[in-house]
C-alpha cells in the first residue's frame, strides 16, 4: 500500500482527496443519515483502493544484485544453510569460510518477537557446521535468506556462495547476488 505521507505533494493530494470525501459524506448525511453512513463507507473504501492501486515510485524497479570482491590470493566462501542442516561440503581451496544460518521465523513469531528459540536453533546449526569446516566461523543471519546474504556480504567479501536449502531458498539467494552460487 502506498504511504500517503511519503512526500509533501503526496500528502497534499491526500488532503484534497479527504476534503472531497468529507464533502460527499456531509452532503449525503444532510439528505439522510444512513445515506451519509453509506457515503462514509464508500469514501473510506475508495481512499483505501486508491492507496492500494497507486503505484509506489521505484517499487517496480529490479533490486540491484550484490557484487563482492576479495583480496588477491584468497578464496572466501560464504555458506548459507537452513536451520537443521547437518553437513555442508566446501571445496578444499577455501581460505576462509563464514557459515550464516538465517533464523527463519513465521509471521506470527516475527510480529510477536517470539524469535529466541529460532535464533538458538540457527546458532546451534551455525556452530555445528562451522566446527566441521576448516577456517570457518558461524553466524546467525536475518529471518530471510536473501537478507542474511545481503548482511553477510557487507562485512565479508566472498568469492563464492554455497547454499544448503530447498529450491526456493536457493532461488532467493541467486536472485540477490552477482557472484557464483552453488548448491550444497
Amino acid at each position, binding site marked *: 500500500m502506498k504511504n500517503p*505521507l511519503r512526500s*509533501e505533494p503526496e500528502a497534499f493530494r491526500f488532503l484534497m482527496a479527504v476534503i472531497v470525501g*468529507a464533502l460527499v*459524506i456531509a452532503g449525503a448525511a444532510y439528505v439522510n443519515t444512513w445515506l451519509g453512513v453509506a457515503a462514509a463507507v464508500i469514501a473510506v473504501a475508495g481512499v483505501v483502493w486508491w492507496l492500494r492501486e497507486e503505484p509506489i515510485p521505484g517499487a517496480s524497479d529490479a533490486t*540491484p544484485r550484490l557484487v563482492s570482491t576479495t583480496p588477491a590470493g584468497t578464496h572466501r566462501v560464504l555458506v548459507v544453510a537452513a536451520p537443521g542442516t547437518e553437513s555442508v561440503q566446501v571445496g578444499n581451496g577455501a581460505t576462509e569460510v563464514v557459515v550464516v544460518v538465517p533464523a527463519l521465523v513465521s509471521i506470527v513469531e516475527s510480529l510477536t518477537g517470539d524469535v529466541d528459540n529460532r535464533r538458538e536453533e540457527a546458532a546451534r546449526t551455525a556452530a555445528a557446521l562451522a566446527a566441521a569446516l576448516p577456517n570457518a566461523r558461524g553466524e546467525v543471519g536475518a529471518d530471510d535468506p536473501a*537478507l542474511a546474504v545481503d548482511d553477510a*556480504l557487507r562485512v565479508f567479501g566472498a568469492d563464492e556462495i554455497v547454499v544448503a536449502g530447498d529450491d526456493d531458498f536457493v532461488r532467493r539467494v541467486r536472485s540477490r547476488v552477482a557472484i557464483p552460487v552453488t548448491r550444497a
Partner: protein
Amino acid sequence: MAAHAEHVEHHGPPAPHYSSRITPGVLGMFLFIASEIMLFGSFFTAYFFVRVVNGTPWPTPPYHLPVYVAFVNTCILVTSSFTVHWSLQSIKRGNVWGLRAGLLLTFLMGLTFLITQAVEYSRIGFNTSDGAFATIFFCLTGLHGAHVFVGLSILLFMTIRAFRGHFSAEHHDGVEIGGIYWHFVDVMWIVVYLTVYIL
C-alpha cells in the same frame, strides 16, 4: 540498494546499512502514522460510544456549536495547506521569496486558526465538566489544537531558516517534512470538523 563489499583495510564500522525490508525513513513515517491513528482513534472511539452507543444528543441541549466560525477556521487551515505547498514548489524552482512568503502566510494562518479556536473556547458557553458531549468536544478539538501548536512551532523554525537562507532548490528537506506534518494536521481537522461540527 547496491552494495560493494570490498575487503580492504577498513577503519571504523562497516558502511551503514539497514537489515530490514523498508528504509528507516519510511519505517519512521509508518510508526508516526500508526501512533497518530491510535491516539486520535482512542478519542474517536470515545466519541462513538458517547454519541452512537449511549445516544447522547449532539450537541447536548442547551449548548450550540459555532459551526460557521469553525467553517471559516476550516477554510483558513485548508488555505494554509495551499500556501505551504506553494512554498515548497517555489523553493524547488529556486524561488526563495516565494518560499518565504508561503511559509510566512502559512504561519500566520495557522496562528489565526489557533487564536480563533482559543476565542471559540472562551465564548462557547460550556466547559469540560459539563457532560460527556462537552468532554469529548474539548478532547478532540484540543488534541487537534495541540497538533496545530506543534505544527506552528515547526513552521516558525522553517520560516526563520527560510529568511536566513538555509534552503535552496537542492536542499529543502526541512520544508518537505514540515509540509507533510502540516497537511496531516489539516487532514485530521477535516475529520474532526466533519464528525464534531457537521454530522
